[in-house]
């Protein structure tokens, strides 16, 4: 009845540990570690930034700022508070949303990016250049998202990518605020259960 729960390949934990080690080396001033971390996670971060701001130059600025911040704050990274990728993705998203809000182009960008809210093909845009680790991660996430009810998935994607407030999401989807909150809660809890804690 239900699809099999996606599981992570063993390399996921290894990648997480390797990224944590790179951060420890960066904290000691090892710039080559920064280069290796960039190779590991820059592409999804850039894609995330571009997905939110819809502008290549701005997305590049965001990625550069995020890696610079990671470089400077590497010593403060606490492994008990989440993965390196999770930390970097959160930094990227927050900066991108700040830019969107600052430019006051939210409505324009939403209109432009509305087609992107449609479910993406599970493996269609993963090019051959992406690392195997990244391809597996992206596949697991999209599979998990695909298991959500469509209204939950839409609410989750709007909450993550749009930078809209709760009320604005409710207004955009023409649903009561309580309904939107419930969809976000149920959708994210399901994602948590479906995805491993460390990809």
């Amino acid at each position, binding site marked *: 009845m239900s699809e099999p729960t996606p599981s992570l390949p063993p390399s996921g934990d290894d990648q997480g540990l390797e990224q944590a080690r790179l951060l420890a080396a960066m904290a000691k001033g090892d710039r080559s570690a920064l280069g290796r971390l960039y190779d590991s996670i820059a592409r*999804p971060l850039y894609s995330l930034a571009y997905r939110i701001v819809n502008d290549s130059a701005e997305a590049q600025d965001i990625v550069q700022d995020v890696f*610079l911040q990671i470089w*400077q704050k590497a010593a403060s990274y606490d492994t008990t508070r989440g993965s390196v990728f*999770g930390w970097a993705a959160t930094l990227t998203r927050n900066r991108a949303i700040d830019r969107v809000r600052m430019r006051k182009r939210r409505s324009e960008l939403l209109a432009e990016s509305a087609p992107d809210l449609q479910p993406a093909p599970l493996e269609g845009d993963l090019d051959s250049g992406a690392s195997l680790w990244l391809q597996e*991660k992206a596949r697991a996430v999209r599979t998990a998202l695909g298991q959500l009810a469509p209204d939950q998935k839409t609410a989750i994607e709007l*909450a993550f990518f749009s930078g809209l407030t709760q009320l604005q999401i409710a207004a955009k989807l023409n649903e009561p605020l309580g309904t939107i909150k419930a969809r976000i*809660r149920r*959708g*994210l809890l399901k994602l948590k259960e479906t995805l491993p804690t460390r990809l």
Partner: protein
Amino acid sequence: MITERQEELAALHAFGLLEGQERIDFEVELMRDPELRTLTLHLVEAAALTSLSAPQIDLPSGLKDRVLAAAAQSAPTNVVAFPLLKFAPWAVAAGLALAATWLTSQNFSLRTENANLRTERQLAETAYKMAQNQLAERSLLAENMISDLGNKLRKSEDLARLKVTALASLAGNTKEAQVIAVWDPERQAGLLTMDKLPATNDGEDYQIWVVDPAYKNPVNGGVFHVSSDGRIALPFKPDQPVAQAAAFAISLEKKGGVPKAEGPIVLLGK
């Protein structure tokens, strides 16, 4: 036990959708509830992974070089700073505790000093009032004393103004007589006190005379009659103004007196 409400808040927090007081309240709750903290951490991680659902785009060439070049101009935060930062809240708390202790002790000290100063001021005010009362009492006493002294002075001046003369007997029948004349020149009046003055016959009176150099003859001071005991206090007033009462005399005259002394002078005093 985590409620649905907490799950909802945690999910919204993971997407950065909590604002204002709702966000502050939830963050306070997070600090207190480790179970909720763990759930929120997992939800934040799951939300971050949502980013992988975005279409993957090739990285622009040159971006890596820019990142590394920017990093070359900026050193990472010192590793040693991590444990220091970890203990920073405790250091701040310790500092605040020390500051609070110092402020409390200062507060107590200042309160005590304030209470002492207040007591000293009250004592000083009491002493001042007592001194004021004593001064007022002494002032009143001094005023009374001054008033008394003034009265006494006036009395002494009055007395000094009076002329007191003891009259001596010039007749054999008045040897034991004691007569004193007191004269007040301002009032032009006098007083005679007499004792053991022989009684007069029915047809006779004693007559008082005031000797004034301004007049050729003594000035008449009036007549009086002495009963058997011979004791009398008699005010008298001459019938002419007396400028200087040089002497007083008493003569024995016919009843009713005479304008000019005719009978024997029985008493005389200067």
